[in-house]
């Protein structure tokens, strides 16, 4: 990991990778969503509404994977004082929050025709909403630290503490009786018929690559901004 401790070396890899991730992601998303819209059969109970799955599941996955990334970055910052860890954590937070919001919105739109309600305070829905609030709090905290100075470690500690919510989201449908159904995809297989399931991994991979491209782009932007600020400071002190 310390290979990337040097931002120049990180940038030399991140620059070409951004494009690859972005374009491959876009193609996979187009294929996955196109197949999900036009090629898969309807569900025996829900009919066409089941197609919301191809957006809802990747969004939920990225909302949770995003915070896992923040937790790993926070650990790297606290333990190894990795110079890019804070940058990475902040870069993940915004797209993570956006995908969590997409998950909640698409879930709400899905819930109305199937369950008969836009929103219910059951275990899964509530813990996912808490994740969105955690993202917003993390962004506010990291920005406040970046603007006013202070301990960058505060955001990292928050990032690690917030990770406690991830197992709660995952197990909410097992621990508590919820309106949300149990998990469909596990290590041992899936309760989704293969005819409906197959575009999902494609969309999942596509959205994940797009997420990676956004994170790399934001990290590069943050590093560039840091460089500009340092140069302006030097100019200011020379004049």
């Amino acid at each position, binding site marked *: 990991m310390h290979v990337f401790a040097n931002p120049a070396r990180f940038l030399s890899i991140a620059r070409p990778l951004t494009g690859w991730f972005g374009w491959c992601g876009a193609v996979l998303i187009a294929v996955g969503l196109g197949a999900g819209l036009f090629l898969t*059969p*309807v*569900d*025996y*109970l*829900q009919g066409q509404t*089941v197609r919301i*799955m191809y957006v809802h599941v990747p969004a939920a996955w990225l909302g949770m994977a995003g915070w896992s990334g923040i937790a790993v970055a926070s*650990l790297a910052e*606290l*333990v*190894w004082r990795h110079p890019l860890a804070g940058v990475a954590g902040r870069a993940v937070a915004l797209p993570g929050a956006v995908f969590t919001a997409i998950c909640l919105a698409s879930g709400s739109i899905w819930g109305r*025709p*199937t*369950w*008969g*309600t836009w929103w*219910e*305070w*059951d*275990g899964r829905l509530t813990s996912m909403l808490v994740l969105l609030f955690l993202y917003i709090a993390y962004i506010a905290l990291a920005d406040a630290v970046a603007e006013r100075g202070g301990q960058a470690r505060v955001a990292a500690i928050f990032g*690690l*503490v917030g*990770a*406690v919510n991830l*197992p*709660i989201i995952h*197990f909410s449908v097992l*621990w*508590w*009786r*919820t*309106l949300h*159904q*149990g*998990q*469909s995809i596990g290590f041992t297989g899936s*309760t*989704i*018929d293969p*005819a*409906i*399931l197959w575009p999902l991994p494609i969309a999942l991979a596509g959205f994940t690559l797009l997420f990676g491209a956004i994170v790399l782009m934001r990290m590069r932007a943050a590093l560039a901004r840091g460089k500009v600020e340092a140069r302006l400071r030097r100019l200011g002190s020379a004049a």
Partner: protein
Amino acid sequence: MKAKNQRLVLVLAATGALVAAALLAMSALKDQASYFYTPGDAVRDHVALGQQIRLGGMVEKGSLHREADGVTISFRVTDGAASVAARYTGIVPDLFREGSGVVAEGRFIAPGSFVADTILAKHDERYMPPQVAGSMHEAKSLKP
């Protein structure tokens, strides 16, 4: 011990303690955080008559009837062990049908007799095309 390793141990110990605390808290919440009572729970917990609760379970096969006024339905909610008679006046979600999950908000007006104000449909984690479902799910729907 190097400072780096010391920090690693400290952070991991703190995180472990935090996760353990959260898991303990969540398992203590088990009953309170549940979204609905099953018919069995409602009997066991002596839910008071008139108390607003959510009752969840399966709509018993063959129990769904529409009354003469055309908008009132009666059905039985079962959890396999116990079952409760329920009545509801109004429009139900499309997915509400016999043999499928339901969460009804309302209250008991007599032991074993429930009146619902709201009906939510609860579906399970299986998704399949109609051809696959085939005769497996020939449950009577309320739709004509």
